[in-house]
């Protein structure tokens, strides 16, 4: 494969842009506010539920698991929005303003421009996710002495979900205007969310039609299925079996769905490269 020196130059510029335009700062400040609020709430609730006895220890464990998953669910949502919205104008904005004309007339492949931007934003998303998820897990560890199980499985699945939205946002920018792209990506999030819940409710109510619609929605946009699987892994077996929280999926996505999601990212990225290479600038 021919080396792509331009890719790293574009990645470097993308990282510099998120710092200079204070996008990262704004995300981190809001994230910090969330973590402070979460830790205060966690501390207060945990203080009131600090019980004794075997039953109460189990209840406390379940409670800590629920609150931690609630925190991670919020982190998941914030990371998705960051992944979807931060790069939403990175291509469409530069194409619209004419910046891209100067860039694309240089001896650099358009593939390098697109992949460089994707990589730069992915690094930002990984950093943001590490900060937020790490913050929630540190709070629950320090204040409650609790760490969810199977983080090695759950956290990468959450990151894969964010990667799906990042890739969709970049891909949308090769074809749509910034506003259209933002509306489309947020709409896809809604589709994934509703589709996943329809699948869960369909399974619970033994309604094949609802389950089928939900499965199709998950295939179209497999992001929410990644959260469902991550939540399944990151809670104690007793909570999974009892299904007492909204984070206990009735229909657990399979490993094939993870492979589908991974392939989905690759295919969407390749389609984006193809569109961008043919796009008149």
């Amino acid at each position: 494969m021919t080396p792509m020196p331009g890719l790293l130059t574009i990645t470097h510029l993308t990282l510099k842009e998120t710092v200079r335009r204070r996008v990262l700062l704004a995300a981190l400040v809001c994230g910090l506010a969330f973590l402070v609020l979460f830790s205060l709430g966690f501390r207060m609730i945990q203080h009131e539920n600090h019980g004794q006895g075997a039953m109460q220890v189990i209840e406390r464990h379940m409670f800590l698991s629920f609150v931690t998953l609630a925190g991670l669910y919020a982190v998941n949502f914030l990371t998705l929005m960051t992944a979807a919205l931060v790069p939403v104008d990175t291509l469409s904005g530069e194409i619209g303003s004419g910046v891209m004309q100067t860039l694309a007339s240089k001896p650099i492949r358009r593939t390098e421009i697109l992949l460089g931007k994707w990589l730069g934003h992915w690094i930002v998303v990984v950093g943001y996710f590490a900060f937020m998820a790490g913050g929630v897990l540190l709070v629950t560890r320090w204040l409650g002495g609790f760490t969810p199980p199977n983080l090695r499985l759950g956290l990468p699945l959450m990151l894969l979900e964010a990667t799906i939205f990042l890739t969709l946002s970049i891909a949308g920018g090769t074809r749509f205007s910034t506003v259209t792209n933002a509306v489309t990506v947020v709409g896809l999030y809604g589709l994934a969310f509703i589709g996943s819940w329809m699948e869960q409710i369909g399974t619970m109510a033994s309604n094949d039609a609802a389950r089928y619609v939900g499965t199709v929605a998950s295939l179209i946009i497999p992001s929410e299925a990644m959260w469902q699987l991550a939540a399944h892994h990151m809670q104690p077996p007793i909570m999974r079996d009892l299904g007492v929280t909204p984070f206990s999926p009735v229909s657990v996505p399979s490993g094939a769905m993870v492979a589908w999601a991974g392939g989905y990212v690759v295919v969407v990225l390749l389609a984006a490269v193809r569109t961008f290479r043919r796009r008149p600038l």
Partner: protein
Amino acid sequence: MPDAVVETSGLRKQFGSKRAVDDLSLSVRAGEVFGFLGPNGAGKTTSLKMLLGLIEPTAGGGRVLGAPLGNRQARARLGFLPEHFRFQDWLTGREMLSFHGRLHGIPRARLEARIETLLARVDLLDAAGQKLREYSKGMLQRIGLAQALLNEPALVFLDEPTSGLDPIGRLLVRDIICELRERGTAVFLNSHLLGEVEATCDRVVFVKQGRTVHELSLAEAPATMEVELKLGECGADTLAALARLGRDLKRVNGVVWLSIEGEHVLPEIARLLVARGVPLYGMRAARKSLETWFLEVMGEDQRPG
């Protein structure tokens, strides 16, 4: 043409039902300053984008620096200043040049020296540390010109390079174009300022509705002149005699305009008027301007843009 840096044949671009460029065939020689002229919507910018590989032609083809349109190796030897130069306005002028230089793969030490030279040349050394968002339109054009010259290109495309510049800035651009010509760099100039084109270009082509309609070598342009005569009482037979000495005779309020083949016709005009006893209050002759050429080629309904 063996020394052509740009050659196109039947280049066409269709956007839906609109044909932006239609059968464009042109050739630009190495080391020449080439003017690309036409009214608004003539397809100049679309043509330029096809030459740079920014858009794909619908039909036809061409070569730039001996390579097919859009070739990456050829782009390494090109410079380009778009009409409305924009860049990430959160970068400083020096950072922007450094970024573009890295895209060209210029080694760091050479790039730093080149940046300093160009900043001095476009008179922006003092503003090099300022963010681009703080630059005036003229400063942006000048820093844009510097980025187009970073790689010491063999061919530079300049799309309205003096747009937004004050007279001193325009002079600077004109000087840089002359320096490029002296160094053997070809310049493809798209400008609506015909005076500027006239002062810098060796050759121009006129495009209308996406087609090349006329080509003119300014150095070898015919010595056609425009004569303005302020006359007293003058009969129709005298005007008819004058018209035979040139063409396109017009008379408005006692002032007569006439196009003639060259200076040698002027004494004939004077002799004719004296012989017929027509009072002559003034006589002014000037070489035909590019603007006049433009209006003649395009038709009176068109204006450059």
